[in-house]
């Protein structure tokens, strides 16, 4: 039996959509009402589309003050599922006795709390990362852990690929634990927080998105992969200096050593015996 009268999903992207579908399918079993909050502007509105298809009510609340007001005035017991969400729940919301919040974080907490965790995991040359579903408290990403799932960081993986892998793990974890959460019987593990805890901010940039051409090609490749979210401008474009000119890296690719093409705006750096790192660049500014 659910202890919650209402389930609110907030977030965007694939994980939010999958959570909405799962919560919707469980609605009859637990008899709660549900709603989706679209908070962030995105180029792809798949979660809203899913709500339309399933006839799940949704609200667009872009203003953070309005959002805080919405949550802090929750009158009935509700479960808030934060999935792919960047809104930080302030104390007035986390302290509302009617509101229980669970959040998906794309790292193995207490490692890499804050923003852009997949990027930092790649940049810091981690071999493994994962996801955490946890209860939300006032401190960022510090709440009790409900479930964690691990995955390998493979040598060529890019930030957006790792993010997608983590979203799939997130849904796996969510579907395993949802019934326990909604019935308030999920076993949790308290986080042991390091004394000096770095919380990564959205303004923190791996390597400042800059390298020198005499840095190791392995480092340069790792930096490029760590900040690679395609055309979604999470980070600035990576720059360096070449032949006394400021250049920006438009594209990069690991290619076979015999695949050199002499073309303007291309640089090749040796990664190992078999592969080169091909950089396509243009002048900056």
């Amino acid at each position, binding site marked *: 039996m659910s202890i919650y009268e209402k389930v609110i999903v907030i977030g965007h992207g694939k994980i939010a959509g999958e959570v909405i579908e799962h919560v919707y399918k469980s609605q009859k079993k637990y008899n709660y009402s549900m709603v989706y909050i679209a908070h962030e502007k995105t180029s792809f509105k798949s979660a809203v589309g899913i709500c339309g298809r399933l006839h799940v009510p949704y609200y667009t609340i872009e203003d953070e003050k309005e959002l805080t007001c919405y949550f802090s005035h929750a009158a009935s017991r509700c479960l808030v599922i934060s999935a792919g969400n960047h809104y930080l729940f302030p104390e007035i919301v986390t302290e509302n006795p009617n509101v229980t919040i669970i959040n998906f974080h794309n790292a193995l907490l207490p490692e890499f709390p804050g923003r852009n965790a997949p990027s930092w995991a790649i940049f810091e040359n981690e071999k493994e990362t994962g996801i955490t579903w946890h209860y939300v408290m006032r401190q960022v990403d510090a709440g009790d852990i409900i479930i964690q799932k691990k995955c390998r960081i493979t040598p060529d993986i890019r930030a957006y690929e790792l993010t997608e892998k983590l979203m799939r793990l997130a849904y796996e974890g969510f579907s395993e634990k949802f019934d326990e959460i909604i019935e308030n019987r999920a076993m949790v593990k308290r986080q042991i927080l390091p004394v000096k805890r770095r919380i990564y901010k959205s303004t923190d940039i791996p390597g400042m998105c800059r390298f020198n051409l005499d840095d190791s090609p392995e480092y340069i490749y790792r930096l490029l992969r760590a900040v690679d979210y395609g*055309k979604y401008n999470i980070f600035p474009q990576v720059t360096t200096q070449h032949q006394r000119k400021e250049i920006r890296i438009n594209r990069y690719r690991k290619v076979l050593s015999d695949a050199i093409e002499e073309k303007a705006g291309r640089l090749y750096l040796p990664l190992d015996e078999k592969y080169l790192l091909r950089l396509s660049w243009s002048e900056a500014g």
Partner: protein
Amino acid sequence: MEEKVLNLLREIDEDILTFEGENLFEAGILDSFLVIDLVAELEETFDMEIDAKYVLEENFKTKEAVIDLMKKIIGNIE
């Protein structure tokens, strides 16, 4: 050009080519991550940069939309 685009779409997911609906994202065939892959492959195939302003759902929601987008971008370059 059209054939190259269709080949790339086929590599991403064959269902894109047979889809006759209005929106590949709502049908669950495409998502924002696959769009990143697709844009990267389009840039590699045509050896060009695709400006971020073009990476919107409306430009990728059907195979026809993707072809029209490439015609527009290549037309602007030429």
